[in-house]
């Protein structure tokens, strides 16, 4: 009845049921995503790297691991991106270099999202001392620099893709928990939660079956944002030597192996192309996050 209600009625018919309205809404959301240049650009970039992560070395021009005598050849007809100090084809290594990151980063994100969502639901739903206790721990963890925790943990546990996933996932958990908690605090005051209590539902059912479906939007957005950071974290830790281990053709490993050459002369292609690859993937993921956020926040 206010101006806004009527304006909103201009978008959704206020009275009467339109049987296909939900389908239309879903299709509308997809339509908005497809029309969003941001989202499409991100999807193309990420799609490209997903493709290469799947096909890996099978479609690369050369074997990314094959060591040859043709060392440090500049970009040209034979080797479009040149070769590195062991004579390996940089183009092939860049294309094949996506595979480890594309396994570790999404799984770490998934772990962080699952852990963070659970923790966020618990703290947001129960409030009181449970919330106080967990939230203080979360604050303490967040006060430490991410890279310090991760490096310490990786040194203690030993480097492997599995530990990398666990460590990054664990570091993300409190961050995700905070976002989820904020969303839960808004939902738990709604009457459908009281209605559930009034029919004798237990807390886990209310949290996961009643509240969770209503906060999927912010969780999806958080997941894409986290994925960007996860790729970033994998790249950073690998560069420092705690992440993906040689001889994998990982981008960060390539940079770590070759950056000293930048002092010796003009061998910048050995570092430049893997760096561009990392940048395109992270930018792509962030573009998807932006696109999703624009559509879901509406």
């Amino acid at each position, binding site marked *: 009845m206010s101006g806004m209600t009527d304006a909103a009625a201009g*978008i959704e018919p206020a009275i009467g049921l339109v049987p296909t309205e939900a389908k239309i809404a879903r299709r509308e959301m997809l339509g908005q995503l497809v029309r969003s240049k941001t989202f499409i650009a991100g999807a193309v970039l990420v799609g490209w790297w997903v493709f290469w992560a799947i096909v890996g070395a099978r479609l690369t021009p050369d074997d990314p691991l094959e060591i040859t005598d043709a060392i440090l050849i500049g970009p040209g007809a034979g080797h479009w991106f040149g070769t590195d100090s062991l004579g390996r084809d940089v183009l092939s290594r860049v294309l094949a270099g996506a595979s480890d990151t594309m396994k570790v980063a999404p799984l770490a994100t998934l772990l962080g999202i699952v852990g963070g969502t659970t923790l966020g639901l618990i703290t947001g739903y129960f409030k009181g001392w449970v919330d106080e206790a967990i939230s203080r721990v979360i604050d303490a963890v967040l006060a430490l620099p991410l890279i310090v925790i991760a490096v310490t943990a990786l040194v203690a546990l030993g480097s492997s893709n599995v530990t990398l996933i666990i460590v990054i996932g664990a570091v993300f958990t409190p961050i995700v928990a905070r976002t989820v908690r904020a969303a839960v605090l808004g939902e738990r005051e709604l009457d459908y939660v009281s209605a559930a209590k009034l029919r004798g539902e237990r807390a886990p059912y209310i949290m996961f079956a009643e509240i969770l479906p209503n906060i999927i939007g912010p969780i999806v957005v958080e997941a894409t944002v986290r994925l960007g950071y996860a790729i970033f974290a994998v790249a950073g830790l690998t560069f420092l030597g705690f992440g993906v281990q040689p001889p994998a053709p990982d981008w960060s490993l390539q940079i770590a192996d070759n950056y000293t050459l930048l002092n010796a002369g003009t061998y910048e292609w050995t570092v430049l192309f893997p760096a561009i690859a990392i940048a395109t993937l992270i930018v792509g993921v962030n573009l998807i996050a932006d696109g999703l956020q624009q559509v879901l926040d509406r």
Partner: protein
Amino acid sequence: MSEATAPVVTAQHALELDELDVVYRVRGRDRQVLRGVTLNVGRGEAYGLVGESGCGKSTAALAIVQYLPRNGFVRSGAIRIDGRDVLALSGAKLRRLRSESVSMVYQNPGAALNPSIRVGKQVAEVFSLRGVGRDEALGHAREALTTVQIADPGSVMERYPHQLSGGMQQRVIIAMALATDPALLILDEPTTGLDATVEAEVLDLVAGLQAELHTSVLFISHNLGVIAKMCDRVGILYAGRLVEEGATETVLNDPRHPYTVGLLRCVPRGGVRKDHGRLDTIPGFLPNLGEELPGCVFTARCPLVEQVCRAVEPPLIDLGSGHASRCHFHERAQSLPRVTAADLVLPAVDRSADPLLRFDDLGKVFKQQGHDVHALVGVSAAIWPGETLGLVGESGSGKTTLARALLGIVQPTSGAVTLDGRDLSGTLGGRSADEMRALQIVFQNPDSALNRRHQVRRILRRSLKKLAGTTGAAAEQRMLELMSSVRLAERYVSARPGQLSGGLKQRLAIARAFAGDPKLVVCDEPTSALDVSVQAAILNLLVELQAQQRVSYLFISHDLGVVRYMSDRIAVLYLGRLMELGPSEVIYSGPHHPYTEALLSAVPTIDGAERERIRLEGDIPSAANPPSGCVFHTRCPRFLGPICVEQEPPLVEVEQDHLMRCHIPLEELRELQAAGSPPARETVAP
């Protein structure tokens, strides 16, 4: 008004809408929202625009100030404010028109004020905009606040909007709106969110100022009572079409369009009660936005419809003295057949038997920033099987806390609740499944009460499983029965709440509450979010379910007409205390508690017959710091003297079944209230 913008020739009307078509572009299609609306608001006139939500009232208001949402356009027609063509203006000229010639007051005063700027500065801004210096602007702001009868403008100016009550906020907004002496004041549901007592104050204020300043007013409301009180002329809007127009008294007493007749019949008024029969309703739904309507816009819902109605759109037929109706059969409109049969047999409540639910000396103290807030103080009452106990009082009087304490959502601090003679635990965890299923609730806002991600089937099946222990095929069968008992068509089983209209959502919420065959259902303002035609259907449904299942209701509403229709007995709460309790006819006919008297007199009635008006001064006091003695003494229109300040009157049975908490003896109250409204008294400092 500055010289530069003064119209050369003073226009005859403050506002003219001429064949106004407004469309919203949705999914690439233009959907018509206003269909050739033509109306004029004369100088100094108050014009009421009435209709249900979605009929285009607010769109009209937004179009007038060129404030439509981005997908809204004026397709054709003209809008003239003070003789100037609004559609031809843009940029600075449009802004100047908005700042000087037209003001708008919205429904939610809290959202219309900037929360981070002090009230004084916000009001002064209106004057600063016109080039007045800072100190002078503040001086004007003080005057403006005095005009809207704010007793202490100095202290109000120093405060932030959230530190003011809703009524006070709306006064500030009205002060800002009138500051520029606009040619046209648009009020869009200005009192819808306010309590009846505050609403009455604000309406009195607007009416007084309008008479004094000769402001032209466009008053938008769904409440016919408010329109009857405020407006000289009224226009009835349906599906973006003006279907009837005329002097307010004529239209409301001699309606000539079936829609107007239907609207008037939906509202429970004139003392109608559930045992008089069902309310009449308007069948069907508003046409979808932008639907092609070649004939009369009301055909789909009109019981008088004939072939010609579908084919030919009736013109606005002049009925003399400015009354016009857009109906081929306007002379038959009042003989509109009833859509809903009135017959309904309600079993009588047997109050000699044991009550179903009894609560004794119920108290609830909330801790708020170290302070004790007494939300409920020693409230006792009982509800018998098949009975409806109405619960009334202003917001903050403890109605919802009482309901939630009975349900076990809020744990009472003291007192006892018994169900069928057995003690009930104060928390849900301590209640058995049977006790839980016995007490259910229908919430005010179905959007909040229903999980928007769950389908109808899941919502109902889950309640059947948890409350009735029914699963599998039996539950599916029972679910369909439930749906048919609340008249929710079977095809909605896979729908989510967002796909249902407000009325259907509330039916679903009622079905859920009835899943476990409850003994008592708390209805917490179940129709306040609904349009009157939908409200009538929901009230009918609740009464039918009561007739069939002998369920009891605790019925909370701020709409006293609705409470009167539904209730067998009524309890009046003020600051968490029970002030009066008795059979609903006694409560309404009096003699009643002075607070009840004030509540009743605050309600604007459609019938035009003005009650003796009794105004409550100021706002409800804080429950953290209640007044001494009788908690109502600070606002009481029948204030006796020191005894009221010093001693809290006990709740006594003044006549059979009628309990009251007042120092004035019943007979004296009877005489006083028969004599009419009391003289205004000096406000007693709290």
